[in-house]
Structures are given as C-alpha cells and as structure tokens.
C-alpha cells in the first residue's frame, strides 16, 4: 500500500537522507562517477574533523585542567584517535555501515572487515540521486567521527582516570556503544536504491508485479538502522556523537567519584589560552563536521556552514551576557563554552534549519547550558570535570528536539526530503510536527538508554580488570608524572 510510503514515519526515515552518512554500499563501476569538486571538499572536511580532535579538543580540554594533568589529557585524546583509527578499518566501518542480517536494526556485520572490497574505485552514495563520492574518502570522513566521539568523554573524568583503564574502556566503548548507535541512526541504502525500488513500484502493472515491487520497496526501506527507520532527523550527529558521549561521561564521573579537593581547592584552568585555541580550532573544524556531512559541495553545504556560524556566535554571546549579568563579569571561558554549546546544538540541525532558526537555537543552547553548568551541576554536586554532560548531552538534546521544529519550511527550514514520490528527484514532504517530534524524542531516549546503561556496564568491567582510578598520591602528584613519567612544561 503506497500509503505506507507517504506515512510520516517513512518520510521521516527518508528524511534521514539528510543525515551525515550515505551507505557504504560499493556501487558497480557502471554507477555514476564522483564529481571532483565533491571529492575535494570531502577530503578537506576529513582533515578538518581530524583537526577538531588533535589538536582542537585536546587543547580545549587540556587548558581546563591543572598543569600537572595537562599532558595526560593530551595523551589520552591523541591515543584514542590512533586506537579508533585502527579499530575502524579493522571492523568498525563494517559494523557500522553494512547489513547486520538478523541484528540489522541494531548493528551491521563483518562483510567489510579489514575494508574487504573497498578500494580506490568503489564509491559511496550521497543524499542526491546519482551523486557519489569515492568510498575511501567516505570511510575516512566517517572515521574521524568515530575518533572524536570517545575523545569527548575524556573530559568527564579528567584528572583521575588511570591511562590503562582509559585505553581498555575506549576499545570496549566504541565497539559496543558507538558502532551500534551509528548504525542505528545512519545506516541505509542510499537515494538511488530507494528511487530504483520506487520507480519499480510506479512502473509495475497490477497484481503480482505490483505486490513484488511493493515487497522490494519494503525491503529497501527496511534495510536501515532502527532510529533511521523511526525517522529521527540528525544531520551531523547530535545523537550519535554528543548525547552519546555526554551521557557516557556523566555515568563515568559518577562511578569514578569526585576529584580530591573538589569544591574546596582552587581547581582553576591552567591555561585558558590553550582552551581558546582549542575552541577556535573546534569551530573551524566543525565546518568539516557539519557542512561535510552533506557529502557534497553545493548550496545545502553552504546552508550548513551558515547555520554553524550563526548558532555558534549566538550561543557564545548568550552565555557571555547571561554570565555577565549573573556573576558581574564577561568571561572568556564563558564565551568559548557557549560557542561549543552552540556548535553541539546546531549539529543535528545544521542542514535542516534556516539561519534565523539557528540563531534562536544558539541563544537557547547558550543560556540553558550555562544554567546547567553553573547551577544545576553544583546543586546536584557531581564532578563532571569539564562539563561533558552539561554541554554535550544537554546541548545535544536541545539540538535534537529543536531540529524537529526548525526543519519546518514554515520556519525557514529545509523541509523533510522524500525520495519516493518522484523517484530520482528530491521532493519535500509535508511537515507533521507530532510525527517528527515523536521520532526525535524516541531517538534521544534510546541513545540515553543504550549509552547510559551500556557505559555503566563497561566501566564496571574495566574497574574489575585494571581499576578505574589512580591512587590518592598519584592524583596529588598529577597524572602527567604518575601515569606518563613526563611533565607538560619544563619552563
């Protein structure tokens, strides 16, 4: 029943075309060849996202810890990037972007383990019919997302987690939390596959032929991750990256407990200069993250860039002025923290919202995250060292929900794409708020549950095997000397 294909859920699902990731399905040589402009942009976007992790995130976080722990943060982030790199090409890419058979709702399979069948000639689909990019650049681009997500968690238990424990935890976390989440949200067959099936249905006569075509189309639309099928909208990773890492961080800092002297001693950032450098590079790199998620270099890419500019600026100023009013001084840390909050919030919305909607989103994200970090955290009294939860999880939730509203063309949004009605060309489906918000809400809740519960289990396992936390004396001496036998500075 064609109706099924106009059901909001499916439209939402197809809307996921707007998502970060095309399928990894290698196209036959007959398939369209990549446009070199798209390829050039995706190569650059990949470099930009790597720069977000190292040195960007490492410096943003590192500057916020005390001198004696600076080097440990840098080491943790850099090591995670390298670890995930090897895991990704070994089985991560396959687990994320292949059909997982019976488990396909939740995770992919091993058909592309060790990048089997992936070479310089294979391509990956984008969100435009007939437009593809070299699969290897798609693998690299996706890899940088898998690298930075676990690195984000580091901030929650910085200054006290054992390096060996961290290494073990991250290997487990990407395997059991990240790859499945990414599969659930981002795996699908690509526009051409959908179009072909839809065309088949359209051209099919009646009776058997029609039924067969219908079945085929059902199969095609069913060959996607669970949240994708629900129709959650996430342009560049609000759920997979930020909510996912944010909740894992919260669970982590609760399990590890507070740092010695928390609430008593002056645990001031050792170098806001480094934090500002990190924040700036994160902003610059985030254009690769958000605009790159369009997988092409076109007008929508430019829209994502624009949204990534204005939401960030709005959130940065919102935090600055709210803090100025509340505490009497406009701070650099507030300014850059707001910028990150804005970047996080606009991530899922970047290709769906309009510029003005993004400004509103940024203002809200900046103000709410400030309240959370400045008041709620101290009220609840947990020690989320660098506010991974307060900024990434809260900001991610705000963004995920706001996306469902701002995508509305009536609010200047890009609307929800529909690849079925007119097979082969992109049309915008009718907007139904209830349906979209329901899908967004479910996506957020599943992410919180999967990552929250899953991470808790992994922390416990690691605690049993190597122990999560360093000794009191080591914590006092600082992780740099205790864990790594080096000092960040010898002035």
């Amino acid at each position: 029943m064609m109706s099924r294909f106009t059901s909001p859920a499916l439209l939402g699902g197809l809307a996921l075309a707007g998502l970060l990731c095309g399928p990894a399905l290698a196209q036959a040589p007959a398939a369209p060849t990549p446009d070199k402009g798209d390829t050039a942009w995706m190569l650059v976007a990949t470099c930009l996202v790597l720069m977000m992790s190292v040195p960007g995130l490492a410096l943003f976080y590192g500057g916020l810890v005390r001198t004696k722990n600076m080097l440990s943060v840098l080491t943790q982030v850099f090591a995670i990037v390298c670890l995930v790199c090897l895991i990704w090409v070994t089985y991560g890419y396959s687990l994320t972007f292949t059909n997982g058979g019976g488990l396909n709702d939740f995770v992919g399979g091993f058909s592309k383990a060790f990048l089997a069948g992936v070479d310089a000639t294979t391509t990956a689909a984008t969100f435009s019919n007939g437009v593809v990019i070299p699969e290897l650049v798609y693998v690299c681009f996706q890899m940088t997302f898998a690298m930075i997500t676990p690195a984000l968690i580091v901030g929650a238990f910085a200054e006290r987690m054992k390096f060996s424990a961290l290494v073990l935890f991250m290997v487990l976390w990407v395997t059991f939390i990240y790859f499945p989440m990414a599969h659930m949200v981002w795996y699908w067959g690509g526009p051409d596959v959908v179009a072909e099936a839809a065309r088949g249905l359209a051209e099919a006569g009646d009776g058997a032929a029609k039924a067969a075509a219908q079945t085929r189309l059902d199969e095609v639309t069913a060959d996607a991750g669970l949240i994708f099928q629900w129709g959650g909208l996430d342009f560049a990773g609000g759920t997979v990256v930020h909510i996912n890492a944010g909740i894992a961080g919260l669970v982590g800092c609760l399990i590890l407990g507070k740092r010695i002297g928390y609430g008593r001693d002056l645990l001031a950032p050792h170098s806001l200069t480094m934090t500002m450098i990190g924040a700036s590079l994160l902003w610059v790199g985030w254009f690769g993250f958000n605009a790159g998620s369009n997988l092409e270099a076109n007008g929508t890419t430019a829209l994502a860039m624009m949204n990534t500019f204005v939401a960030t600026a709005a959130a940065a100023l919102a935090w600055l002025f709210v803090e100025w009013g509340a505490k009497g001084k406009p701070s650099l840390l507030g300014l850059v923290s707001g910028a990150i909050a804005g970047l996080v919030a606009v991530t899922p919305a970047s290709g769906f919202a309009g510029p003005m909607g993004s400004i509103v989103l940024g203002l809200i994200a900046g103000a709410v995250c400030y309240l959370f970090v400045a008041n709620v955290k101290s009220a609840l009294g947990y020690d989320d060292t660098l506010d991974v939860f307060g900024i990434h999880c809260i900001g991610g939730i705000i963004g995920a929900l706001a996306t469902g509203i701002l995508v509305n063309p009536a609010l200047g949004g890009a609307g929800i794409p529909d690849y079925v009605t007119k097979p082969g060309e992109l049309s915008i489906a009718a907007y139904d708020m209830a349906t979209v918000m329901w899908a967004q809400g479910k996506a957020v809740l599943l992410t919180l549950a999967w990552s929250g519960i899953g991470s808790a289990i992994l922390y416990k396992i690691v605690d049993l095997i190597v122990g999560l936390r360093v000794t009191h004396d080591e914590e006092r001496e600082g992780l740099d000397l205790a864990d790594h036998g080096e000092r960040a500075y010898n002035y």
Partner: protein
Amino acid sequence: MKIVMAIIKPFKLEEVRDALTAIGVHGLTVTEVKGYGRQKGHTEIYRGAEYAVSFLPKIKIEVAVSTDLVPSVVDGITAAARTGQIGDGKIFIMPLERAVRIRTGETDADAL
C-alpha cells in the same frame, strides 16, 4: 651587617631599585612571592564556580648592607614603595653574620 628583606608591590620594583642605587647600594636579589595579609584578594569564576584568591603577587627584595646603611635603606625603600594603600608591604631586618663574594673570596663589607 644586616639583611634587609622587603615585601613590596610588584610594580614598585624599579623605583625601589633606583632608590637603593641612589644611596649607594649596588646589589640586591629579587624573588617573586605571593603574599597574604590585610589586603583583600579577588574572586575568580570558572564556569560558575567561584574561587576566592587571597594570595596576591608581591616582590621580595633581599639586600645585604653594612649596619650603618640600614636606616637610609629602610627610608629609601619605604619612600619608594609606599602608595598609602593596604598591601604596600613590609620591611624586615635580620642579622647577617658573614658575607662572601664567590668570585674573589672577599668577605663581609668588601663582599657587598
């Protein structure tokens, strides 16, 4: 001989140095220190967490001088370092039993 140890406000160093040179004291040793006293510190706020910082940056000057010079040294420092506001600092005078110039081995007065 005495060791005159003065704790002053950082931006007064140059003036004090000049004052001492003026009265013929041509050597001194300076240390960056943090001071705690009547002068109230400031508050730093990081992501909403407020920290009262009560230790303030000060400069410690140590000068070894022959006893007869002490009064003029004290006056010189006081005059140069005073701003009249809380936190101007202190001068402490301690006995110095012996002084040696490493390069020459000269001792006491000759060593200064």
